[in-house]
């Protein structure tokens, strides 16, 4: 299974009609990758192109439309790519294989195959609780600050965050946060509570500090009793996290 972080992207350029053991090379490569358990591969047929033979393959000329370029792409970890490369090298007898360093930012899978040691699984026992106090009308780059903070925490894979809206309050700025009659004129107090390991919260604090203009963050030590991964049933396709 692919993990977030550094990975390799392999691109193979071949011709549509290149043969391999009496079959199409493209089909051959794809079924090989599938058999080897590669997390995903995509083959795209190009509109036009040319290769080392310097013959234009294009859909415009009927005779040549059989020889269109095909690009197969897949992303895998460096070890897996090393493992597959000898076989691919052998298979591609007419074409180009290219490997790039890449970074996986997100892997969203609706049916998560029960992560054996997910990023939050080891969080048991001692942890830290972070409470962030801000105003509902505080903004960061045009969006509500509390939304921006929660999005950032999610990106950093912090275990969880909850936003509370207060009904009354005041703080260092002196003014009372109170709900007005109009929904757009109100500035109620907002509190975000976050629980995770100390090191991760320290990193999150640096990020949040840069986003906040004025506010209070409070840390305390807590005992985490348990943290259960809510695994969606295969039938319910929504709520993948």
């Amino acid at each position, binding site marked *: 299974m692919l993990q977030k972080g550094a990975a390799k992207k392999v691109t193979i350029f071949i011709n549509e009609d290149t043969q391999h053991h009496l079959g199409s090379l493209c089909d051959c490569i794809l079924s090989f990758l599938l058999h080897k358990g590669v997390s995903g591969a995509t083959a795209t047929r190009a509109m036009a192109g040319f290769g080392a033979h310097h013959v234009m393959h294009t859909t415009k000329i009927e005779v040549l439309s059989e020889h269109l370029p095909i690009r197969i792409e897949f992303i895998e970890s460096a070890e897996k790519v090393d493992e597959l490369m000898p076989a691919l090298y052998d298979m591609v007898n007419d074409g180009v294989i290219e490997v790039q360093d890449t970074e996986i930012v997100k892997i969203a899978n609706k049916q998560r195959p029960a992560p054996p040691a997910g990023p939050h699984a080891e969080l048991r026992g001692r942890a830290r609780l972070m409470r962030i106090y801000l105003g509902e*009308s505080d903004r960061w780059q045009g969006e509500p600050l509390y939304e921006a903070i929660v999005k950032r925490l999610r990106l950093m894979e912090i275990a969880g965050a909850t936003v509370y809206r207060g009904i*009354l309050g*005041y703080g260092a700025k002196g003014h009372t946060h109170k709900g007005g009659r109009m929904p757009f004129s109100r*500035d109620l107090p907002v509190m975000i509570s976050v629980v995770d390991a100390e090191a991760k919260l320290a990193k999150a604090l640096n990020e949040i500090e840069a986003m*906040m*203009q*004025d506010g209070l*963050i*409070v*840390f305390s030590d807590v005992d985490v009793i348990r943290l259960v991964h809510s695994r969606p049933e295969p039938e319910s396709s929504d709520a993948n996290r």
Partner: protein
Amino acid sequence: MRTVKKAKLLRLHFGEADQYQGKPLYEAIVNRCKELKIAGATVLRGLEGYGETAEIHRHRLTRKDQPIVITIVDSPENVERLIPEVEAMMDTGVIAASDVECVRIENPPAGRTDHDTTTP
């Protein structure tokens, strides 16, 4: 700019229907905090809960009695000063204090394009 120091977090749990001298208790407590120059107070309303009398506090058509939590963060001395005051005002409820590390963030507004925090 960041300032880190030791502080106390005080939590007061009671119901929304609780009153003090004809005013909602949470409003009275926030006003008292202001009089005592406490750094800040936030009133949070819960959805549902129960307490000493095992009566479920929830929003009903006839009676609004959802649980209320006030959180207050200040220096240990100020919190110690506040506790007897609040104790006198509260009829039933829970007062809980814990030690926390407090990070105060003050970034100058320069470099920002929107000044939405300046509400009256």
